[in-house]
Each structure stands twice: as C-alpha cells, then as structure tokens.
C-alpha cells in the first residue's frame, strides 16, 4: 500500500500527526498528557553555532600531543570546601522514585569513574547513591521529601532548587504506579497515590528570604558545603543576579530542553527558554557583578555531545550537566527493547513515558522485575564511556581553537549559523559581524 505522501496527500504543518493524536487523546480521556523527557520541538540550540577552528591568526594545539586540561573547581567563593571535578560535565539531579535504585547507583558509579559529581533529586538521598558517588550534590527542593540534616552533612555540596528547565514555575509529579513502598516511605506518603510536589519552597519566598535560607544551610553544615542554586531558564539575567546576591557559590541554569520525569506536555513545550538564549543573559549578569568564573555557572538542557559541551563553555559556562543523555547512556531507549516499547505504544528512540513506571530498560521504574534488568556496574561503565567521549570531543574542538584548557574557550571562537541563533547567543552571524539586537541591548 502506498504511503499517504506517495499518494500526494498533504499533512497539515499546523495539525501534524502528533497534534492530531494529542487532540484525540484529550477528547477520549479528558486528561492532559503527562510525560517525561524535555522539550521535543525544534528550538535554536548549540547546533546553530560553529567553531571557527584555527587559521593564520590562531594557532591550534596538536591533537593527541599537547595538553588540553578539563578540570573545574566548583563552589570556592564563600570559603566552603569546593568540589573538584576532573571533567566539566556533571550528572543532573534525578530522584530516586523517578529512577530505580539501580539507575541511581549506575549514575554514581559512572560519574565517579571519571571524577565528576552526581546529584540527588526530589526524593532524598539513598545509600546506593551516596555509597557509589565520590562527589554527591544534595538537592533542597520545595517538597523536602526525605530532607534530612544528616544527609546535608554527608553531601559534598547543596543545591537549592528553584526550578528546572522543563517546567519553570511548576512542581514535581510522581504518579501512583511509581510510588512503591520504599519510595512512599522516603517521601512520607501513602503508597500508590499520585504525588504532587510543591512548586514553591515552604519556608521562604523571594530573594531576600533565600539569602537567609542559604545562611541557615551554611550554619547547619558549619559553612563547609558549597551552595548551588538551580534555576529553570526563564529570566536568567535577573535570577542569576539575585542568586549571587543571595550567596550562591554556583548557579545551575537549566534550559527548556532539560528533562523531567513527569510533567504536563503543555508545560514542557511551552514554558521557559532554550539554553542558547539563557546562557548569554546569565553570563552578562555574572560579568556585571564581577563574578564571572568566581561564581561558577553550570549549564544544562540538551547537552548531547562534546560539541555541545565545548560551545556551552565557550559561551561562558564553567561546566555542563546532563540528565537525558546520561539516561540514554545507561540504556534508556535501547533498540534491544524495541518490541516492548511497541507494546507500550511507543518506539525505541521515542519513549518518553517516564511517569508510567513501565520502562523496559529498568531505569525510570520502581518495578522490581524491570529494575533488575539494569546492571548498575555495566550501566555505570557505559555512562563513564560516554562521559569520556564527551570530554575527548570537547578537547578536540578546544585544541583546534588553540586552547590548552576547556575553560579557555571563548565566544570569539564561534559563529552563528542563523539570525535567530546570533540574536540569542550574541555570537555574530557567520561571515558577518552582525549580532541582531546588540546595538540596543541593555538589561534584559
């Protein structure tokens, strides 16, 4: 049978198949779509930037011969014990609950093998995670599920989460099928209910309160832990300035492509801005405060390969963080489970029903049978391999730009491919010196 295209049928660009399916599902169920992953729509991204490499006026470094260092220190501004990471890629916060215990352990194993840090998530700190993570960042979220001062003290850094790129302004969500007995106990909730996490912190509102809150966290931990503040990319120019004023050692900036375990589709696709647009605003804020490279900036949301890493650093980030890519490295969306994805109404490469708890790869699930499919040691090795590749790729590009450290990359090493990217990234359109809006740009 000939395909619709072969028969000359025209698909609506506005009402495409995904839009039609969504309308049909809404009409049938009366419930909006909740899913995992991040924004799937095409948005201006690091793909829209290119490195120039070296030429007559720039000397490259010899690949495989000359050093290109990759280490980064996070959180040394206020006298805490900073985190030293060997590569500028950390693992983003993902909760036990959203992920299986095996997946959390694998993240810790993989990150530790290459000398970087992993991050807890909205559900407390598990033994598996602490035990297998050499460097662990403990999140303080609005829900405070499993929040324990002993864990604050056991962490290597604390991250106050104001939002995430997938849903700036939204709280968490964990549907009943993933609230196992252990998850329920850690979150002090009845097993099996649909759990709603708050979107605002329960004991502070606004930047002035945050200053006092950060001070309390420092007091509780005797000023030994660096304080990260994570924001979803919406108004980064102001949010970064306020976070720094509140005493953050590190700002984590998550673009709209950043993943989630469970959020409304409408929220994921329609709230927040791409990391490409957010990053320059954050860097500008830090530069105006004289804090660029003193308060470290960690960028996340859509990091896939070493080019994304290098471009984020060249734009002014000190490190990047990965979530979705880390899950894929563990085994998420593996074609070997193609048949099972089909049975779930999805396909390998498309699966995003992280909220559903039936992940064939055993990662976004609490089902003991499925979770047992993920070998934490093997999955950790895969993640470590992937992190090594990210680093090698970024080094390759940095050497081509003549840089002996990844942090020496700079905006001048790049050009934009599109007018939109040039306007957002503030990197000139290729072949020109044009940055749309540069002449009128003030405070964002």
């Amino acid at each position, binding site marked *: 049978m000939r395909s619709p295209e072969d028969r000359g049928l025209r698909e609506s660009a506005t009402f495409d198949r995904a839009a039609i399916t969504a309308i049909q599902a809404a009409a049938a*169920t*009366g*419930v909006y779509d909740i899913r995992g992953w991040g924004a799937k729509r095409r948005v201006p991204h690091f793909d829209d930037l290119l490195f120039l490499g070296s030429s007559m006026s720039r000397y490259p470094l010899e690949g495989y011969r000359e050093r290109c260092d990759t280490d980064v220190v996070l959180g040394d501004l206020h006298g805490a014990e900073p985190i030293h990471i060997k590569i500028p890629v950390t693992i983003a916060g993902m909760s036990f609950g959203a992920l299986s215990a095996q997946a959390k352990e694998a993240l810790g194993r993989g990150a530790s093998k290459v000398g970087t840090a992993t991050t807890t998530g909205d559900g407390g700190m598990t033994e598996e995670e602490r035990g297998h993570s050499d460097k662990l960042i403990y999140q303080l979220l609005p*829900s*405070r599920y499993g*929040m*324990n*001062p*002993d864990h*604050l003290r056991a962490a290597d850094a604390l991250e106050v989460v104001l939002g995430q790129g997938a849903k700036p302004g939204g709280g968490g969500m964990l*549907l*009943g099928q993933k609230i196992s007995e252990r998850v329920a106990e850690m*979150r*002090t*909730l*009845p097993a099996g*209910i*649909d759990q*709603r996490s*708050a979107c605002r912190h*329960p*004991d*502070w509102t606004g930047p002035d*309160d945050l200053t*006092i*809150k950060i*001070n*309390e966290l420092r*007091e*509780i*931990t*005797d*000023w030994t832990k660096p304080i990260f503040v994570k924001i979803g990319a919406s108004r980064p120019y102001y949010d970064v300035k306020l976070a720094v004023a509140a005493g953050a050692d590190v700002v984590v900036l998550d673009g709209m492509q950043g993943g989630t375990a469970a959020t409304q589709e409408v929220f994921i696709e329609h709230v927040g801005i791409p990391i490409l647009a957010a990053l320059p605003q954050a860097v500008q804020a830090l530069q105006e405060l004289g804090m660029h490279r003193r308060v470290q900036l960690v960028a996340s949301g859509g990091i896939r390969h070493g080019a994304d890493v290098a471009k984020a650093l060249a734009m002014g980030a000190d490190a990047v963080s990965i979530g979705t890519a880390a899950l894929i490295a563990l085994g998420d969306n593996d074609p070997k489970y193609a048949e099972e994805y089909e049975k779930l109404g999805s396909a390998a490469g498309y699966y995003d029903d992280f909220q559903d708890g039936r992940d064939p790869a055993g990662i976004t699930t609490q089902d003991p049978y499925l979770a047992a499919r993920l070998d934490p040691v093997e999955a950790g090795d895969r993640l470590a391999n992937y992190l090594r590749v990210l680093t090698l790729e970024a080094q390759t590009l940095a050497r081509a730009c003549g840089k002996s450290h990844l942090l020496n990359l700079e905006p001048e090493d790049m050009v934009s491919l599109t007018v939109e990217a040039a306007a957002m990234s503030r990197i000139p359109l290729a072949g020109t010196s044009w940055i749309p809006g540069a002449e009128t740009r003030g405070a964002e």
Partner: protein
Amino acid sequence: MESLNDGTAEFDLAVRSVRELNAELHAPSVERYVVRHPRGAHAVAAGVNRPLQVRIDGDVGYYCAGMNQEGLITVDGSAGPGVAENMMSGVVRIRGNASQSAGATAHGGLLIIEGNASTRCGISLKGGDIVVGGEMGAMGAFMAQAGRIVVCGDAGDGLGDSIYEAQIYIRGSVGTLGADCVEKEMRAADRKSLQDLLVQAGMTSQAEDASYLDGFRRYGSARTLYHFTHDHAGSY
C-alpha cells in the same frame, strides 16, 4: 562564653556571633546553654543534633532551631518565619508567637507555640507534631503529609488544603476548609492522641479536662485528590 554554677553555659549574642554559637552547639562543651540578646538573629540554634537544652532569652528571627535533632530548645520570646523547619526530633517551645511556616516539613519532634502561629503553620508536615496554644493563621497544614497539629484557638482560612495523612485538631472556629480537607469523627483513639499531645506540651490540666477536650474537632484528608482525574479541574 560564660559558665554558670549549674553547668549551664551562657552565650551572649550581643558580643559573639551566631556562627560562633552554632559552632559551639554542634560540638558542645556542656549540655545546657542560655543564649542572651538574640535580638531577632536568624538561624539561632540551627542544626543542633544532640539532646542539648538551649534556652534563648528573647526574640529570634528566621529558622530558629532549623532541622533540629534531639535538641530541647526554648525561646523566651517570639520566633520569625520557619521556626523548627524540617525538625527531625526533639522539642522546640516558643513562649510567644511564631511567624509563618512554623514547623514547615518537620519530620518528627514536637513544636509548641504558646502564643499564636501565623500563616502556613505546619506546611508540608512530614511526621512532626505541633501544638499551638493560641490561634493559627490561614493555610495551616497546607499539603501536610503526616504528623499532628493541635490548635487551641481558632484557625484561619484554607485549613489543610491538599492535605494527605496529617491529623488536625482545632478547638476554636475554622475560617474555611482547604481543598480535600474535611471534618472527621473524633474517635476514642483520636481523643487519646490529642490528650497525649496536650500532656507533652505541658497542658496537663486541659488534657485532663473532659469538657476542654470536648471542644476539639478533628480534620483530615477526604482523599479525593489522591489520584488525578478530569473531575479535579475545579478542585484547586
């Protein structure tokens, strides 16, 4: 720091810093402390993690006794926002009033507010107990998951909004009930639980007064919002 004859150390915040105080409380040289001149300072006695007795002689700012573990902390004054937030165990007593978010997310322990508690008292409570001698402001017990809140006076609007399994006992009037919060039958076990909390809070005579106990009504979750359905659109 000055040692008093009874083995109590006196710590004067007029001449020393909160940082010095908390460092001492985290590695204590004695078991009892009196803190003078707190003058509304923030994070006073935050992060105590052993059974110290700490008496604070005056008003405190934000997050006094924050994340307390085992400490027996008394404020002879009023407390700012987030007193005993995320407390794990121990007892925190406020002789005066408490500002908003008192006992927020407390996982355990007992918070006693002898005066009034402001808005969002017991927000997201996770197993701790709170006894308010006076009145409690709006949005008390918002999203409270576990634990008990006793209010001897009135409670403001939006009581127990989106509450999970926490229990609320109110002796006075309730402004309005929040989403999914309902009045529940006061069973014998509930009455006993209430009585025990009043005793723990030092309100022994009231706990033994049957007519006083009769004045309380119990509130908790109707559990209608535990699973998402399309009927919920107007519930929040």
